[in-house]
């Protein structure tokens, strides 16, 4: 479980996060949504410790990352996996080497054991016969799968996904969403997804936190979104005519 309490973060005069508090439970997919510039990425970077908030606490099962020194953060990060928007695969390494990298760095597994673990993770994300390929030879969806396999290879307790569907076609995006959700439940991971993809919101949002101008404007489940009377959130979620009609139909 990750609990954040009254997070504030500024860059110079501009306050980007304003007193955000919420709880992300384990075994559930929690989505952070909001318009561009609402503070989603800054919040994600604070959560993983790449940025330090001026005020507030970020508790990983009662361990406050904002109070940790670099060494302690490094320790905690071995319990984290992250799926980056641009995948962040190591382009000089093959698929297999990418997934194996955390095992090489942090475990004392033998070669055979590592290979079995890599193959298990790759098969878990439905990526077979791609071990020897380089990232430049993969499609966008395949790269996401490799990045996801690498993120889960050390059995993380916490998984962070920054816009996992960005640049993917709708069908592949749904496949990636479903994978994230399945893995979250299967391994009881605390998963936090940063997105503005409405399919993800409706599909995998066990909990949705809506940010508006750096503040938490709304939180609830994906099913509650349909019934919310928050104009702000409705303007964002049901921005298109199609979604407005959809909402009307659903409410009827």
């Amino acid at each position, binding site marked *: 479980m990750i609990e954040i309490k009254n997070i504030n973060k500024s860059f110079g005069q501009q306050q980007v996060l304003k007193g955000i508090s919420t709880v992300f439970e384990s075994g559930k997919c929690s989505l952070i949504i909001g318009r561009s510039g609402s503070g989603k990425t800054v919040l994600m970077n604070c959560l993983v410790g790449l940025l330090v908030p001026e005020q507030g606490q970020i508790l990983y099962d009662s361990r406050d990352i904002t109070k940790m020194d670099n060494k302690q953060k490094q320790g905690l990060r071995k319990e984290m996996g992250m799926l980056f928007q641009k995948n962040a695969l190591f*382009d000089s390494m093959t698929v297999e080497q990418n997934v194996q990298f955390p095992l090489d760095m942090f475990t004392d597994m033998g070669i055979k054991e590592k290979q079995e673990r890599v193959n298990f993770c790759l098969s878990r994300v439905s990526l077979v016969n791609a071990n020897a390929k380089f990232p430049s030879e993969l499609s966008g969806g395949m790269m996401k799968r490799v990045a996801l396999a690498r993120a889960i290879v050390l059995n993380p307790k916490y998984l962070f996904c920054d816009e996992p569907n960005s640049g993917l076609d709708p069908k592949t995006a749904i496949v990636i969403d479903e994978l994230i959700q399945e893995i979250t439940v299967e391994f009881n991971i605390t998963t936090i997804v940063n997105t503005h993809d409405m399919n993800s919101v409706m599909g995998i949002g066990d909990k949705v936190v809506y940010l508006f101008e750096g503040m938490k404007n709304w939180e609830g489940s994906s099913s509650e979104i349909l019934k919310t009377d928050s104009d702000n959130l409705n303007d964002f979620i049901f921005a298109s005519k199609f979604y407005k009609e959809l909402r009307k139909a659903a409410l009827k």
Partner: protein
Amino acid sequence: MGVLDGIGAYFILLYRSVAKPEKYSMYWREILRQMNDIGVGSFGIIAIVAVFIGAVTAVQFSIKLLAIGTIPMWWMGGIVRDSTVLELAPTISALLLAGKVGSNIASELGTMRISEQIDAMEIMGVNTRSYLIMPKIIGSMVIVPPLVITAMFLGIIGGLYAGTWGGFFTQEEYIRGLQDQFNPYYLTVLMIKSVVFGFLIASISCYKGYNVKGGALELGTASTDAVVMSSIAIIISNFIIAFVLL
């Protein structure tokens, strides 16, 4: 103030890159990879340039000595030897490496930075300052001296062939000059210069590449800055070493 900030940030980065490795075997593998990339990858260009630098030194000095007329031509061995050992082999090789290896290191780290690969390593719990920078510096400090020594031998051989083919001196005269008044301390100076230059090339290029912010344009600027700053640092440190040690 900007320059002082930069120097301060450079030393802070170096300080932070000295840390206990997460896993020694991974760091060792990375050091070997860097030694291979820097050493094997640069051998060809270093060899070609060293041979011709030695050759041109022999030819130009020979023409001068012949014009003066009173100086024996067997001196040429000593002239080529000392100028190659003390100056040409370490400095020219280092400047070449600053261009080739420096831009390569800055581009590699810069690309990793802007494509979030460094962030990905950080999130995994890797100390990226240590893992990405220290092996490059150690690899460079280990492999640059053998490259410079190779350049030294090839430069002297280049001088021999250029001089004998040009009819300026015989092989026996050149070898007599090489053996005359040889000061082994000059080799110590050459080794010190090589190690210092190897350190400067790798550390400055790492600093420039690791701190890239932005996109392709900034990456190009960082790569150019790495070459320019390394070259300036080599020239200045060359003077300081010569001033202090000779």
